[in-house]
């Protein structure tokens, strides 16, 4: 009797084994796959937050053209068409040598500058098999003023026209809604306007991006600038607030800011308007991305 029951139990057990074989198969496969590294994507919609770079990079072989504008002060009134009579721009071309390495070159109206940068992704935020709480990119930027200084004496050395800046871009995507970036920044000017001006400026930037709907986000940027250059001119910390929209090839940013410049030094260290007194301007960027050597669809 006992053995018969035992036999029945065995048979039932075997049948259940057989019935679950597909799930076993799946489990076997999952075991083989191991846990994947789940990289966080879309921390920001584009390689820029508003004016400043974000920790995002263009994917390999991508070429991007970007036009950044800043208009005049809105409170300049109707005689200046609320600032639209007045604008400065920055034209830029970027190229992605690798997914982790972008370079770019641009030209700014202000001071007739030529600027170039190289940007590296060092860490990617991830979960799963490798847990990394933040993404980290490093950007090194150089600006060269082609415009002559007013004082002829100052035009002797070409290297005097150079300004270097570097930033660590540390970002974290907290959820599908919110991403935050911290940007320790260091700027070195080879030649400054007066003796009381500093050659080196340190700043700490904060950026944030908040998803509103689909491809729309509200973005913000702010820089605490360590010590402002000179007592004779009053400088302010730059603040930018705006909207960002992205399509498959284009990214648009429209924002208000108290900064006039677009390149690092003029944006971060040379802002002379006070946001809270209403000395704000409209900023508008548009960028378009192409991918070179696009792999053709297999088969």
């Amino acid at each position, binding site marked *: 009797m006992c053995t018969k029951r035992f036999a029945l139990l065995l048979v039932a057990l075997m049948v259940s084994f057989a019935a679950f074989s597909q799930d076993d198969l799946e489990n076997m496969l999952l075991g083989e796959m191991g846990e994947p590294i789940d990289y966080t994507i879309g921390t920001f919609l584009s390689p820029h937050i508003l004016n400043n770079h974000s920790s995002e990079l263009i*994917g390999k072989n991508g070429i991007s053209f970007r036009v950044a504008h800043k208009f005049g002060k809105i409170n300049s009134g109707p005689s200046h068409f609320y600032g639209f009579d007045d604008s400065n721009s920055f034209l830029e071309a970027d190229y992605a040598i690798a997914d982790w390495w972008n370079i770019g070159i641009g030209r700014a109206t202000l001071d007739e500058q030529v600027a170039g940068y190289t940007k590296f992704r060092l860490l990617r935020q991830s979960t799963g098999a490798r847990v990394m709480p933040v993404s980290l990119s490093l950007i090194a930027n150089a600006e060269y003023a082609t415009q002559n200084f007013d004082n002829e004496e100052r035009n002797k050395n070409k290297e005097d026209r150079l300004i270097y800046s570097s930033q660590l871009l540390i970002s974290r995507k907290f959820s599908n809604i919110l991403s935050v970036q911290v940007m320790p920044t260091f700027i070195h000017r080879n030649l400054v306007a007066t003796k009381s001006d500093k050659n080196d400026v340190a700043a700490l930037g904060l950026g944030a991006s908040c998803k509103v709907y689909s491809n729309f986000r509200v973005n913000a940027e702010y820089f605490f600038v360590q010590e402002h250059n000179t007592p004779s001119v009053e400088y302010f910390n730059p603040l930018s607030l705006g909207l960002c929209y992205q399509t*498959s090839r284009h990214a648009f940013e429209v924002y208000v800011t108290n900064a006039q410049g677009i390149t690092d030094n003029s944006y971060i260290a040379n802002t002379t308007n006070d946001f809270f007194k209403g000395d704000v301007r409209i900023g508008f960027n548009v960028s378009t991305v192409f991918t070179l050597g696009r792999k053709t*669809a297999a088969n």
Partner: protein
Amino acid sequence: MKIKLLFLAFLFVLGLNSYGAKYITKTGYAYFKSHTDAIDIDGSNRNVAAIIDPATGEIVVIVLIKAFDLPLATAKEHFNETYMESDKFPKATFKGKLTGLEGKTLAVDGEYPVTAEGTLTIHGKNQEIKQKATMKVKNGEVSGSCKFQVNINDYGIVVPADVKNRVAQVVDVVVELSVKPQE
């Protein structure tokens, strides 16, 4: 005596269950293409995992959504965030059976038309599908390929109104698997 016999029978059945190596791959290929007049969006994935039990014809395929590469510059974010919601639904799976292999062993070179029938899960939604596929055996290497179409409506994938004309309702999919006996 009886118990011994039963035990032996049990062992035998257990042995049968695991008899015959499973065929497996972790580097299978999946490709999709959304064609509209406005734009073609495609993506490929070379990390498709699949397992086939040649004894029963059962097959499981697992595709990690984030492993798709989309050559269009900003498409990967849209694909993962807006359409596939890969944080919520990290993988697509197919669990089913290959029929048409009965009485054939994969040891002989040749081309075998098969039918894959089972449950395809994309974006957290299940659909029963039945597709013709081809299995090839050449020099002991076993590979299979299947072309089919996915209607994204069936899987609850919503296209935002502003890009309706840029994303196809019916997406072409190709899956190619080259499997090896599991060690």
